[in-house]
């Protein structure tokens, strides 16, 4: 290395050491830890979390040592345990993916700030506290039902939900109400653990299946897909996931969820109180048609539906 280059490097390092202490300190240290609850380790939450980390890294925050991720099974006890572990660890902020995870944190009555993502909007009243902020999703149940009706004539609709996930239960009730308007009979498939799906679906006769935004429902996707393929019926879903065999999915973009959550975490680390950080609705709604799945089942997707898609899986 030439003398000039060596001097330039030394000068740069000198300036860096002088300037660093002047910058607002939001770098993670031992006492700056983020606790994350990612129920069921769902691919949708994984994608949101990748975007969350990427955003933190982009903002210049080292995250390698500052994050504890809990991946509990999406039932009330496991979620509550995950929340308690993070509280006991005395994390600085908790990030909760999905409304049930956020509710489990609120139930612990902790003062630790919480940022929720992918929380279903009708459950805002349960998760909005002085210590929380986040990003919510509000998806049109009637639209997903409409697209499913466009794919096939539906007399009986199977709706997969989890009675223990309040948002999923709410969606089940709403879909039942909407379906009644169209003379569609709804058969609810209430699964509390994903292993139950096969047995609960066995012997059922549906013209289509709609999976609510239930984490358990999405863990049961392989069994639901197998059933749907066997009976050649379309599946509609509210969560995007890579392994999904849903022919139509209406979901918010997980990347937007992760990035917005990161923005709010950064503000809290900068000292802004969560109650002063605006709760936002997800804007980026995707309508995805799975051409590949439709073709494999011998279905022909109506062109008038396909033209509405924001994304096609070929």
């Amino acid at each position: 290395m030439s003398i000039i280059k060596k001097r330039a490097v030394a000068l740069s390092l000198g300036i860096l050491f002088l300037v660093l202490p002047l910058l607002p300190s939001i770098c993670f240290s031992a006492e700056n830890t983020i606790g994350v609850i990612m129920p069921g380790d769902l691919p949708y939450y994984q994608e949101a979390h990748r975007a969350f980390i990427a955003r933190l890294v982009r903002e210049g925050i080292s995250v390698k040592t500052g994050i504890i991720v809990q991946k509990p099974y999406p039932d009330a006890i496991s979620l509550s345990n995950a929340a308690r572990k993070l509280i006991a660890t005395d994390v600085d902020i908790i990030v909760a993916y999905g409304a049930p995870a956020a509710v489990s944190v609120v139930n612990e009555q902790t003062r630790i700030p919480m940022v929720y993502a992918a929380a279903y909007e009708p459950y805002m009243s349960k998760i909005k506290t002085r210590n929380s902020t986040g990003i919510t999703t509000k998806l049109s149940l009637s639209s997903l039902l409409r697209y499913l009706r466009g794919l096939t004539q539906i007399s009986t609709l199977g709706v997969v939900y989890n009675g223990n996930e309040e948002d999923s239960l709410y969606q089940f009730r709403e879909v039942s109400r909407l379906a009644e308007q169209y003379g569609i009979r709804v058969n609810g498939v209430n699964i509390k653990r994903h292993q139950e799906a096969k047995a609960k679906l066995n012997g059922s006769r549906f013209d289509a299946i709609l999976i609510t935004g239930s984490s358990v429902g999405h863990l049961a996707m392989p069994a639901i897909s197998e059933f749907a393929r066997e009976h050649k019926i379309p599946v509609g879903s509210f969560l995007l996931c890579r392994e999904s065999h849903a022919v139509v999915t209406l979901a918010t973009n997980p990347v937007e969820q992760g990035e917005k959550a990161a923005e709010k975490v950064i503000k809290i680390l900068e000292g802004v109180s969560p109650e002063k950080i605006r709760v936002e609705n997800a804007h980026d709604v995707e309508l995805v048609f799975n051409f590949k799945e439709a073709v494999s089942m011998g279905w022909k997707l109506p062109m008038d539906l396909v033209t509405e898609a924001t994304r096609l899986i070929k």
Partner: protein
Amino acid sequence: MIYRPIVSFFASLMLLFAFSAPVHGEKEILIGLIPEENIFTQMDRHRPLAAYLSKKLGTKVRFTILSRYGDVLDRFMTRKMDGAFFGVFTSALAMEQLDAEPVAHPVNLEGSYAVESYIFARKDSNIKSVADMKGKRMAFVDKATVTGYLYAMSFLREHGIADPKTYLRDSFFTGSHGSTIYSVLDGRADIGTAKSKIFLMLVRKDHGIKDELTIIAKSPEFPDTTLFLRKDFPQGRRAQIRDALLGMDKDAEGKEVLKKLEASLFVEAKKSHFQSFYDVAKMAGINVKTYKYR
């Protein structure tokens, strides 16, 4: 080098053929349709009309859907098209910029040839006024539609919003009235603007839509669709087409075609029918003679 004059000669000959080949009405009459709803449904509705006119005129009449609204005028200018069913905005552009002449309006099943523009949102969005629209996402149909763009712009300006682009968080064009309505229903947009005819057509097909959407504003009435023919289209043929359309409700075959088209009859179109459009254009600050639709 000797080949160059020969190549030039044949190239000139080919160009001559290319520009002189389509003589109006000789081989077929090509009429453009602007994409109002799903293009496949729209083509299905218009196919019987093409067959009916072909029979009446003794010349093949063919309809084609243009990919974008603005393309209708482009095709007109490049002389590839003999006529087009224009929406009100493209009608005004065609009259002002191309000197095209209106022929007939289809009258809907309710007995009107006029439509309105609706500005709407999901009922559960709580968007009820211009103030509520601040920072929201809005879906438009196309820059060259009055019912799917221009009226909404004039409405916002009338309510003191000098720059709608910065007032809204985001806006985008969907390309059709139907897609705009579905965008709002799905939550892909917070607010939409579209033609009342398509809005009501979708509500008739799916009653649930009425419970989900709320209309924030309605425009004055504008002529809906108008058939225009090129200025230099032969007068004899023009009269034949006009007579065939105006007489459709008087013969059984014509009535069947009208039914497919969801129309009750055709009436003669006049330039004076477009006055309400010019009022809105003025409010939106648009000069139709110089307006760039792309």
